[in-house]
């Protein structure tokens, strides 16, 4: 069992506290970097300059933005459902931090090494939608409500292919390992790829593609950003939010992107495994490469229509992922 931060400190309670603080700090820095990256990449794709003024290459621009958001007045519209409106950003924010603390960053470095790691990541991932719903309903605004309804329908539908595609990897890991192998333990999936010497994307290309498409939809990224389609819905479910409350939604959105990229790294791209560089470096390089592809796609493809989005999920992705799972199960049984 790899050393976890929780085991390193004598008291488990203290270990958990340090871990949570560390994850929150890392996620915050990460979000600041991702927002800068998104702006720079979009500018590059559209032949603009992007942020240039604050700091080298405009890198401090997002820090300035964050300071602005922190110092802004928190405006609560008069007609909102107060309890829901206030809790919603927290409900979106907390599951993200919980899910981010479950990943193996290196062979021996992870905050928590759980046998049900993969299940928990999706459990927390599915929870964010409750917060989005609260925000949309509590705002008492037709655009926010419409955005929330779209988000709920989309997330519930795309969760199915997302989980089914990862299950085929779990099956494969269990078939390849010995009796003690557990395919839902993220650290074991990564080290299995290290030991076998190949990435699972090579044996499970269909699952990897389905996972990536479903992950784009799950994080509400273009071309699936229908819940916050700004040309139709102002800003979707967070229309009525401003200041730090809005920042929390933003934080959760970019962190979610990072989390689905981390899951993809562990399941399909070998996790920390790689030559020369230390493991954690490889882990983050791969994760940022996947995030970069997500940004690239956002600024390249137009937005889908809602019925196209739903029929694509139910008529193409779900049958395909079930078929992939069945074939994997038969092969795993035969080997």
């Amino acid at each position, binding site marked *: 069992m790899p050393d976890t931060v929780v085991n390193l400190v004598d008291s488990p309670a203290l270990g958990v506290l340090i871990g949570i603080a560390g994850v929150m700090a890392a996620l915050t820095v990460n979000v600041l970097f991702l927002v800068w990256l998104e702006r720079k990449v979009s500018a590059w794709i559209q032949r603009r300059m992007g942020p240039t003024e604050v700091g080298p290459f405009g890198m401090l621009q997002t820090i300035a933005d964050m300071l602005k958001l922190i110092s802004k007045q928190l405006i609560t519209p008069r007609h909102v459902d107060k*309890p*829901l409106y206030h809790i919603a950003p927290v409900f979106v924010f907390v599951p993200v931090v919980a899910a981010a603390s479950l990943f193996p960053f290196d062979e021996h470095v992870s905050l928590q090494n*759980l*046998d*049900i790691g993969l*299940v*928990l990541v*999706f*459990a*927390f*991932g*599915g*929870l964010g*939608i*409750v917060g989005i*719903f*609260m925000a949309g*309903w509590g705002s008492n605004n037709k655009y926010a*409500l419409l955005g929330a*309804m779209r988000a*709920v*329908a989309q*997330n*519930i539908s795309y*969760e199915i292919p997302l989980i089914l595609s990862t299950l085929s990897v779990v099956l494969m890991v269990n078939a390849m390992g010995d009796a003690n192998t*557990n395919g*839902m333990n993220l650290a074991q999936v990564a080290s299995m790829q290290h030991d076998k010497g190949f990435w699972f994307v090579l044996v499970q290309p269909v699952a990897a593609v389905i996972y990536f498409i479903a992950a784009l939809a799950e994080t509400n990224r273009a071309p699936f950003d229908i819940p916050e389609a700004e040309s139709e819905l102002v800003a979707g479910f967070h229309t009525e939010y401003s200041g730090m409350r809005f920042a929390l939604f933003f934080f959760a959105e970019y962190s979610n992107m990072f989390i689905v990229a981390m899951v993809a790294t562990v399941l399909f791209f070998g996790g920390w495994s790689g030559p020369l560089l230390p493991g954690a470096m490889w882990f983050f390089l791969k994760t940022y490469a996947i995030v970069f592809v997500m940004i690239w796609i956002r600024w390249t493809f137009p937005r889908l229509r809602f019925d196209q989005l739903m029929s694509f999920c139910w008529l193409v992705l779900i049958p395909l992922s079930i078929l992939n799972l069945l074939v994997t199960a038969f092969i795993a049984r035969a080997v």
Partner: protein
Amino acid sequence: MELEQIFFWLLAFGAVFTSVLVVLPPGGKNPIFGALALIVSFFFVAGIYVLLVAHLMAALQIMVYAGAIMVLFLFVIMLLNLSRRELGEESKTFTQGLGATAMLVIAIKAIVLVEATADGISKRDMALSDGFGTVEAVANMLFHDYLFPFELAAVLLLVAIIGAVVLAKRTL
């Protein structure tokens, strides 16, 4: 009292309190608030599962109930778009009194059960077999020891799904 028992009482109290909020939301009938309170109550129950070393059950409880089923509930409530008039006025009738009495009897019964659970949590480490609560153990139970009831439940769910489609969509 051990730390785990303190946790148990906190979780148990939270679960009961939020369950009461489901049926008696503050400020009159509010189906959305009730559904959200039920989600929070599922969390407390998941916490109790963790204390009972059923980690997989806890994760599935959050994923399936709080993350999927309740979200569908919310979606349906949102689509129904109930007005205050349709929800009906509050009234205290004989049946409600009867219901309250039944609840009280059940609650007293439940307290006895809850105390037994709190006791069990402090003794759990002795009683558990190796690998209890893992994915493998749960799968063995479901797909080996209790395969027939499990498949029966699956068929029942399938019938319910087809029934719902037939009822909702008269012209296929």
